């Protein structure tokens, strides 16, 4: 396994995260999941946004794209839609994913595109050195909320459920085993999978290891991940649970497009064949 893992690590680029950053554990778990799934490195696409967590894509021996703030998801959507043969992983932070990029999630969910999206949630804008994020707790002092955050924090699990994302999970940087299991399952899952990872920032300390050490129980064994209302109850429960909240099978984008395509080719005069450019032009004569 050790040597196998090396396959997925960038041969020379080492993470620039602070020592102790929660994101190291995430990186490690993803690489282990790739190994577990025996993926070919050249058939992996990693797309990330901007933020400390946004540096994710640099550390793989894969085809990686480190784009702009908040746009990892639509970029990955294009990549996966054009190249369904690749395994595509998306990574970013709470700000990247839920503030500037928040508008994209619902639409990836509508397509149920077969992506795995990791949100490393440290409840702060870390790269820019400590401003409020949409998951910062009310009252917290941040650089942009010197008198305390006055907005309510978002509830990511509830939101993803309302979008009907087909695989939804939460874990923490301390639950290494659970994280590996969840990431592996998410990559295996046919369709859009989203994982909120509570990943402490040791420098800006909005979310600390203390916060995720206790009081973050696993979902009970008997939780039925196909039961949305049950999942919603856990989404609203205190303390915060970890585990797979929701997991259903519905057609992926590729399956949806194929069914459209079948329909089209049946209609097209060349049954079961695509048309040539010349044939298309003929239609406009």
């Amino acid at each position: 396994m050790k040597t196998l893992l090396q396959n997925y690590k960038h041969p020379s680029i080492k993470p620039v995260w602070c020592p102790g950053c929660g994101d190291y554990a995430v990186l490690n778990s993803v690489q282990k999941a790739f190994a577990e799934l025996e993926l070919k490195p050249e058939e992996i696409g990693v797309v990330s946004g901007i933020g400390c967590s946004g540096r994710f894509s640099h550390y793989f021996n894969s085809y990686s794209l480190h784009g702009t703030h908040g746009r990892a998801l639509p970029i990955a959507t294009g990549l996966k839609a054009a190249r369904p043969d690749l395994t595509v992983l998306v990574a970013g932070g709470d700000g990247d994913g839920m503030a500037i990029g928040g508008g994209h999630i619902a639409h990836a969910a509508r397509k149920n595109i077969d992506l795995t999206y990791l949100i490393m949630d440290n409840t702060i804008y870390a790269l820019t050195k400590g401003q409020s994020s949409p998951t910062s707790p009310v009252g917290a002092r941040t650089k942009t909320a010197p008198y305390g955050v006055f907005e309510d924090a978002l509830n990511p699990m509830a939101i993803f459920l309302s979008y009907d994302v087909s695989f939804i999970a939460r874990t923490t940087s301390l639950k290494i085993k659970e994280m590996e299991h969840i990431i592996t399952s998410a990559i295996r899952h046919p369709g859009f999978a989203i994982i909120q990872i509570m990943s402490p920032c040791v420098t800006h300390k909005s979310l600390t290891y203390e916060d995720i050490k206790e009081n973050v129980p696993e979902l009970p064994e008997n939780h039925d991940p196909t039961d949305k209302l049950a999942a919603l109850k856990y989404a609203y429960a205190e303390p915060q649970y970890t585990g797979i909240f929701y997991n259903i099978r519905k057609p992926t984008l590729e399956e949806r497009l194929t069914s459209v395509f079948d329909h089209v080719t049946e209609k097209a005069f060349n049954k079961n064949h695509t048309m040539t450019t010349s044939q298309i032009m003929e239609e406009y004569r």
Partner: protein
Amino acid sequence: MAKQQKKRIKPTVDFTIRIAGEGGEGVISCGELFAKTIARTSFHVFTFITYPSEMRGGYSMIQIRFRDVTVYSMGSFVDCLVVFNQEAYDKSIEVLKAGGILIYDPDKVNIDTALPVQKFPVPIEHISKDVIGKTLGKNVVALGVLSHIYDLERDQTKKLILERYGSKGEKVVEGNYAALQAGTKEADTAGIPQVFSLAGGKPANAEYMFISGNQAVALGAIAAGCRFTAGYPLTPATSIFETLSKLLPLVGGKAIQMEDEIAAISAIIGASFGGEKVITPTSGPGIQLMAEQLSLASMLELPIVVVDVQRGGPSTGLPTKTEQGDLKFAVYGSAGESPRIILAPTSVEDTFYQTIRAFNLAEKYQLPVILLTDQSIGYRKATVKMPDFDKIFRVDKFDRKKNIKIPQADLIDILQRQEPTDKELADYKRYRDTKNGISPISRPGTPGGQYVATGLEHNEYGRTDQSPENHLKMSKKRFRKLDTVSRAFEKNPMETYGDPHDKIGIIGWGSTEGAIREARYLAEDKGIKVRHLHPSTISPLPERQISNFLHRLDHLIVVEENLTGQFAHFIKAKFGVKPIEVHKCEGTPFTPHEIYNAIMKVARIADEDTITKL
């Protein structure tokens, strides 16, 4: 295509018809059926459409022109005017030629009886009600009238009616047939003259198609090998994405509607990274939202094609009207300095080829290519020579062809992006600092070709490196591609018309080509000779084209449809000349006569020699 047609062939047949009314009255579909019927003959057709941005009401019109030779513009004046209401009459009557035919609904329109035109009241709404019990057949009644005047092939028109209304049931089709016939009969009874006979002539030349500029983009994309689009609806670009949504699945491609323009361009960036040829069509409001990702694509050196069908601005502006207002934005519309190429098609036919060229350039130079069309060319429909796809030349190793020519109907190069060799993959530098700035790009799935494409400044391997030396080196590398482009374009044929000895020169870009051409012919007929340069590459600035053109010129006119003279500004900065700038900022395209008047004014001044030489 137009550019090659250097010799002027004078038309023997040249008619212009305008149908005008209110949005929702069906004037556009009336005109389209009329135009389409003509398109099935051997005549060349050209249409121009304008309608209000409101959901209903407002001035709506279609102008149709047909000739026995290529039609270059909508024309300045009309031979026949059909008006459905007073506003349409008021706004259109001035373009009706003296002696022309005026058809109006007497229940709706008060006319100036003193006008020196042939006036025929036709109660189209009334007739429609009589015949089919509703007023909404009045546009087909009007079509019947036109059918009489220009003696349309009835069966052809009926076939087109069936195509358009067939899905609404037999009754509707029958009603329309009846309305058509009633119109023709009324025209006959009222003694409206039969001006020309389009029926019974030679059938349509099989080599021609009748398409809009927007359709030309979609077809050009498919011809160029594009199999992926992501888009978001935006007037007047929407029909490009709609056409691609219909056609791409038929050729094994994919069209995906995204949640906004940022997502659309992001998706094509992702797909291009995946190795696909990609396009996203939009207009001013949308391309503004793409600024950040245009910069990203340029930094990642990924080929993408973005179409901006310009509309009246700024802001929401005039959504259904035309303008050439986005040029500066296309060139400079990202923070920092990121190279891109801007092409501006000059006609519907040229749109098809420039689209292909846009893909070739994007793939070869690995950067965003922006295709700058506008509402007038996008909505314009014209008869276009069909390309012969057996003669398409797929250039896989593009180095064999050093320059990317203006494609032609009989020779279309289709380029593919350059991939690294096995030797290069052994120590793969995605952003190798080559002499021409182009570095081979690996396709995901290729072992050994893995790399990170990052928007951060990076070194040749793609690793982030923000040292002063590296930033300078890589900035130069990226911009070197534009130098290579410029050099390659040196070999392209001159895009000029007229005699190189003419002392008055006129430069335009984009959709004004036809109007300028006709203005030149008009001037020529008055003995004033004018040279015309109409470059299809707008940025990087076609220096050789322009400097050759400026050579021995006394007076330079630069024509564009905007307020501030955007292209003129580029020319001034580069060549230090002081052109006479002719701007139109009214949401409507230049007519040949407007440009002709400008030429004549300059010619008079030139005569008096009161203007300083360039």
